[in-house]
């Protein structure tokens, strides 16, 4: 068992080391730039990409911690409540309407898709809230999230069948990618991270009280309805921004809070920040692996996180079983 402060210091040091590594790893292997072009590659491509991967991972880790606290369920992840399905439908709609090669500018195209994913994600969560008639009942919220997820995914699949040429780009989005992150995306995610962390911190005591059950939280004077809305807002902002910039990266949001809780049992005031740092370090490490394993070829980072996350959960499951058997 670790204490929160040393763990935070460790995570920040690890993140800094990974950032240096992320700057050094390129399609030609490890190395520091010697000339002007090399410096430009570091400054305009590798640095924003590495920072962006960290920020996207941090947003997902934070959203996962909020979801797991809010639903009192260690298997909750950032893609609950219809957000993922909404983002998917948004991207599919955008690709169908505007075509998969909008103009000639990759930047403009990317901006359009990001906007569509963000709006789709928020719309999915809002639709879930509307169907559940507010946030008073956890079970109704989760069920409404499942309904929205199924229906919107069906819509996305229909669009993909009707317009087969968007399939490839949809697949890339669904797998998640950190390859095209630039400075605007980093700035946006940084701002969203600060904002959603601040909002979530406001509800951190409510999350602590909720661990003892809804009735106990209520008896302690927590206004559950209000707190759920506030926390869902932070959750949607974090998820929407991460998905819009980096696609649907799997497992980071699920695993990061788990890791923190295993290493250091603590209250949500610290768990939220620690989960964000862990998510950031995880996704940055996965991004470096994705670039380096088959260089100069690159793996989609979502595949790396899926494999690593799956392996981690398997280890966790076996350890739990042994503990139960012991």
């Amino acid at each position: 068992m670790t204490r929160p402060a040393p763990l935070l210091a460790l995570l920040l040091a690890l993140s800094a080391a990974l950032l240096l590594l992320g700057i050094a790893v390129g399609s030609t292997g490890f190395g520091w730039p010697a000339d002007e072009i090399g410096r430009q590659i570091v400054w305009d491509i590798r640095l924003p990409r590495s920072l962006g991967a960290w920020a996207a991972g941090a947003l997902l880790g934070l959203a996962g911690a909020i979801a797991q606290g809010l639903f009192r369920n260690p298997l909750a992840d950032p893609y609950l409540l219809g957000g993922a399905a909404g983002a998917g439908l948004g991207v599919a709609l955008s690709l169908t309407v505007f075509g998969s090669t909008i103009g000639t500018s990759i930047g403009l195209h990317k901006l359009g898709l990001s906007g569509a994913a963000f709006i789709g994600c928020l719309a999915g969560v809002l639709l879930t809230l509307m169907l559940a008639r507010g946030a008073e009942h956890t079970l109704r919220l989760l069920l409404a999230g499942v309904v929205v997820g199924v229906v919107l995914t069906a819509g996305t699949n229909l669009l993909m069948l009707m317009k087969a040429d968007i399939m490839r780009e949809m697949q890339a989005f669904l797998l998640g990618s950190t390859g095209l992150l630039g400075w605007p995306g980093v700035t946006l995610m940084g701002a969203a991270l600060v904002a959603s962390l601040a909002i979530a911190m406001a509800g951190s005591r409510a999350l602590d009280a909720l661990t003892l059950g809804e009735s106990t939280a209520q008896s302690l004077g927590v206004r559950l309805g209000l707190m759920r809305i506030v926390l869902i807002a932070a959750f949607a902002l974090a998820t929407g921004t991460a998905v819009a910039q980096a696609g649907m990266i799997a497992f980071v949001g699920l695993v990061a809070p788990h890791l923190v809780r295993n290493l250091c049992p603590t209250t949500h005031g610290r768990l939220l920040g620690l989960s964000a740092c862990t998510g950031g370090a995880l996704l940055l490490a996965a991004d470096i692996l994705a670039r380096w394993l088959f260089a100069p070829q690159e793996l989609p980072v979502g595949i790396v996180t899926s494999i690593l996350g799956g392996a981690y959960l398997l280890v966790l499951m076996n350890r739990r079983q042994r503990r139960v058997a012991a």
Partner: protein
Amino acid sequence: MSALSCSLHRVSLQGHEILRDIALDLPAGRWTAVVGPNGAGKSTLLRALSGLIPVEGQVLLDARPLHDWPAKQRARALAWLGQNESGGEDLTAFDVVMLGRLPHQAWLAAPSSADHAAVQAAMAQTQSWDWRERRLGTLSGGERQRVLLARALAVQAPLLMMDEPLAHLDPPHQADWLAIVRALVAGGRTVVSVLHELNVALQADELVVMAAGRVVHQGSPGDAATRAALQQVFEQRLRLLQVEGQWLALPHT
């Protein structure tokens, strides 16, 4: 003077009527135990009186309608301990008990020295201070119950509602619980507990005897009428004995 009073026409959970036509006055500075057979509606009554579920009717806390109380102020006046509440596995015992201080803390303010003192005192009372660093999930059922009891005590509310507080407690710790309740009442606090253990309940100042969603009787365990009501709701299957001035209930076959 009554700490809590109610006149409930009806309380339903998920469309099922659980309680009907209940009027109660719970005296201040006394220990009241709610007893009755399984399914009588004891826990639901405690939740209704604590403002945790919607009711048709009125609950008055210190002569003021419960729903008029601001949430935090009500939480300082009335503490509630649930039955078999799960969760909190990843919090340390200390953090769990500190949650009891939530109604006293300003929004996001760090715990004050008074909060720390209250937590330490409550954990000492339930003899759980030694495990303050352990996760709730690693404690046994009885240890966990003592931490949760300390959480409710740490609120230091004038009115303490407890639902089956003796669950998982061994006889020495049941005796400790009894001593805590007596000390609270001697200090002017009001305690209301739903109790399964009739022998402990018979030591309360007041009994509320329930059956089938209604209150059958309210009175002191020393009254013959109270014991008759007890026999009635348990279908005459109790043997009530007096030993050393204390009433005991044994199952009667």
